[in-house]
């Protein structure tokens, strides 16, 4: 089944939300979940416009990860087909549909943190030296809605070491208490590059502390 068909079937079965976006049908429309009552939305008909809208926050800061809880408001897409809905959603949340499909088909390749860090090279090679305690702290400092990330973490520290319970590790990738059957969750199958760069800082802190 193609990704567009999967999306079509999901919407047919009642899905109406992904990340910070609400999906409406007949005709297809997309808007920010906090814009439900707004009647002054800027209308877009080209799904490619999603790329620009997703680049910056309301205050003009660059959104360095698409899973950031900072999608700006004030727009609505009027789209002609499910393919256009798919195109726009993949620009707002790249690969989110495909990753969700892979999870449901049990084909998603989840990489735990230690594996992810051990494949790093160059200036990030030393991230693999992070302590388990440091990695657990970092998850709670970097991940989850309180830290502006709206993805559900699927990875562990390593196969034997799950993430400690916290808002970050327990978030299900769905905002606003939307029912799990009515939303496509945003999923994190391996730590992002931002997490890796923060790990590098943490490793340096740990090293400095061990020397003092």
């Amino acid at each position, binding site marked *: 089944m193609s990704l567009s068909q999967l999306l079509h079937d999901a919407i047919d079965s009642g899905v109406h939300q992904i990340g910070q976006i609400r999906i409406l049908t007949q005709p297809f429309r997309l808007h920010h979940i906090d814009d439900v009552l707004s009647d002054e939305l800027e209308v877009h008909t080209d799904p490619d416009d999603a790329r620009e809208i997703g680049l910056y926050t309301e205050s003009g800061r660059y959104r360095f990860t698409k899973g950031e809880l900072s999608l700006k408001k004030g727009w609505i897409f009027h789209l002609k087909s499910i393919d256009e809905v798919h195109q726009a959603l993949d620009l707002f949340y790249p690969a989110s549909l495909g990753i969700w499909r*892979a999870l449901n088909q049990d084909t998603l390749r989840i990489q735990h943190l230690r594996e992810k860090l051990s*494949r790093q090279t160059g200036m990030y090679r030393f991230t693999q030296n992070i302590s388990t305690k440091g990695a657990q702290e970092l998850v709670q400092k970097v991940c989850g809605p309180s830290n502006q990330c709206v993805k559900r973490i699927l990875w562990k520290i390593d196969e034997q070491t799950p993430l400690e319970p916290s808002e970050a590790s327990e978030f299900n990738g769905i905002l606003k208490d939307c029912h799990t059957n009515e939303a496509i969750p945003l999923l994190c199958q391996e730590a992002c590059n931002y997490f890796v760069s923060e790990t590098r800082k943490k490793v340096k802190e740990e090293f400095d502390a061990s020397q003092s």
Partner: protein
Amino acid sequence: MREALYLIDAPEVYVVPDFISEGYFTQEVIPRELELTGPTTHVHGKTIHYCDPVGIHPSMTSLILQRTKEVAPNVPQEQSTLFIVGHGTSLNKNSTKAIADQVALIKTLPECHFAEVLDTYMEEAPFIADWATLSDTPNAIVVPFFIADGLHSYQDIPVMLGFEKDEGQAASQKEVFRNNPYQLRGKTLYYSAAIGTEPMMADVILDQISTFDSNHVTLATPS
């Protein structure tokens, strides 16, 4: 980058690095992240063809000449020197190869009538800062050989050329590409935005795919 394969339904994928030359990212990071083992890799149910970076394709020469026409229209090539500027570093000799190769190619083109075409660098000889003494022509056209505009093309190279000070407003706010020509050191200088901003770059990406197909037998032969 590993999320990219989840974006698509197609079983066959071409990857074209949007990089100006070969290097650490094209030779190590991208293959590592996409789990590539050679020019063509079968991985996770997909066939991935790994092309060369755009910057080393021979059709980049057309972009460079196109850019010179845009930035210096009606300026006679015979009285002009074309400077192609790269970063250059004493750490890696390969970093200048893409530019030296493009210069050599441009010189062979029948439509190229420049008095001189020179590869120059920010941090390696021949230095772009010496542009005025590197050629005898009254006109100079300078094209930064970078994928995108940034600090180098907005600020560093203009400072080296001599029409921008190493201070002042934010680099991205400067209109260095819009004030042509500059009268400097007894010459007329035309300065271009980074070559990667040329819309024809999209064609170079497709050219790189065609070149890959020409160089590798990728289609299964029916038995």
